[in-house]
């Protein structure tokens, strides 16, 4: 069985002519199903660009990106939207929940684009909220929730459609150490119990150490790519 993700000599150039800036300069990487990958690197290293490409939000300038065997650059904008909708989940640093909207409705958001009935939406969203440990916060709006709870609602939103792959962009960037622990343990659980592939960008070592594999990006290239040997294990 082929890898989930295969990158071959991937480049990304922003701008044109003299102002052109090459954010990625030839990345080769394979990611298998069920991996928990941390992408690390200083700002400007190209890790965000890599993340956007992996998440099918952007297309590479040259090179090839195969997701589940499909050449992503051959897909048009709508097809990439549909791919994100069905196969990918996203978690952001700033949570990006809709303000003045209950946790339940926030979690239902992706389902609205997938033609479920009201009853199905409610049921799936409740289940997702329960699985992130917030079964009693359905009615609360983001402003009534702590940062860690908000991020857990965002995770519930990301997994409510049962995606195979979860992209987390600095998921703990806005959290304190205690809630960071909560969120990371949740991500580990999703990876181990549900087999979701987790691809996470972070610049914090202690966060990265929850991952099974750590990739360092430097100046648009893969600097190092190694199995995490002293992995932080979640408390059982």
């Amino acid at each position, binding site marked *: 069985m082929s890898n989930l993700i295969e990158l071959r000599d991937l480049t990304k150039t922003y701008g044109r002519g003299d102002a052109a800036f090459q954010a990625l300069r030839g990345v080769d990487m394979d990611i298998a199903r069920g991996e928990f990958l941390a992408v690390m690197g200083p700002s400007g290293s190209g890790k965000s660009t890599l993340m956007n490409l992996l998440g099918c939000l952007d297309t590479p300038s040259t090179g090839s990106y195969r997701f589940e065997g499909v050449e992503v650059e051959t897909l048009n*904008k709508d097809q990439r939207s*549909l791919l994100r909708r069905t196969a990918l989940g*996203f978690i952001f640093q700033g949570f990006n929940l809709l303000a003045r909207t209950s946790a339940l409705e926030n979690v239902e958001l992706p389902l609205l684009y997938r*033609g479920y009935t009201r009853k199905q939406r409610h049921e799936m969203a409740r289940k997702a909220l329960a699985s992130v440990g917030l079964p009693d916060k359905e009615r609360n709006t983001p402003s009534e929730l702590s940062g860690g709870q908000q991020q857990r609602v965002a995770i519930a939103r990301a997994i409510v459609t049962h995606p195979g792959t979860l992209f987390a962009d600095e998921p703990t960037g806005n959290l304190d150490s205690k809630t960071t622990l909560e969120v990371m343990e949740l991500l580990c659980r999703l990876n181990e119990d549900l087999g979701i592939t987790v691809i996470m960008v972070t610049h914090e070592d202690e966060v990265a150490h929850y991952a099974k594999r750590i990739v360092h990006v430097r100046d648009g290239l893969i600097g190092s790519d190694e199995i995490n040997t002293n992995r932080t294990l979640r408390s059982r």
Partner: protein
Amino acid sequence: MFWNAFIIALREIRRNLTRAFLTVIGVVIGVAAVVTLVTLGRGATETVKAQIEKVGSNLLTLRPGQGWGPQSAPLFSQGDMEAVRDQVPGIRAIAPMSSTSVQAISDEDARQTDIQGTTPEYFPIGNWQIASGRFFTDEEVVDGATVAVIGETIRKELFPKGDAIGQKIRLLSTAVTVIGVTTVKGQAGWGDDLDDNIIIPITTLQRRLNGQMSKQNLGQIMISTEDGYPSEAVVADLNSLMRERRRLSRNQQNNFSAFDSRQIADAVSSSTKVMTSLLGAVAGVSLLVGGIGIMNIMLVSVTERTREIGIRMAIGARAREVMLQFLVEAVTLSCVGGLCGIALAYGLCVWLAKLVGAPFTFDPKINGIAFIFSAAIGILFGFMPARRAAGLDPIEALRHE
């Protein structure tokens, strides 16, 4: 997909009710203005038409001379009337009419009033209904009977205590017996009291009040035309017949005039129609401004919600779904605005109609048009903001602060 867009749009509107209210207020006022003005304009036209009905529908009056006021032109004869009845097609009823103004005296009071001498055929022509008693008959006309049918104003003035039937009224040296009272007509459009008259057989008027027996003795000829028969044709036929009878040469002006009540009705209703459409157009401009208000707020809202659009795109919303969401939002807002405007207009119309004493009729057509128009405004002015939202780049949108 459309239903989902509708749910999403409703949730968005609910999230910011203040903004929604500010967005729709322009459309509410615009629709309310258009509907109110057009409805009241229609009401005014209806009122004028109803008042002309009171005087008599399909009514043609053949008058001596040209224009209003006292005339030196010859009156009409019995022969003229018979010729008109026999030779002009499209006539349903015809009656002579002579009138004079005298003091009417009862046992209780006196009043200067209009005495109209005519035949029974005049009652349907003039749209008279009997309230009590009866109209006079053809025999009574032939006999020159001293009987009278009076209006309600006369009854009130001359017989304040009650029943007038059988009572006597003295007109000059003649006493007439009241045999009927007509139902109240009220005021004509021009302010005349239509109930301030006494109708007696024309022969009685001629013999006893005017004291003349000449052949040229009919002041006017009242004609009602058949329903659906063009009154213009009747007027043209009347003109040529009377010119012939009076032997007018080609370069002589008519020394009579055929006067069509429907012409006044048409003139009045066409002028109110012009007013209505002018005012309606002004109100339409306010509706347009309301639409621009929607576009403005939607554009601001797209900028303000850039991040939200980014989230939606990241979790898999296609450009067309984002577009549809914003479009449905704009249309929903403008439709809600339209409905509120129609409700407001209903209230305003009822209140204003009561204020000016005009009848209020709910016109589903103008309300429907106003509603469709407001929906169209939502589509028209929601399109640009929606396209802008759909054209956003998800990465840029997510990074937007």
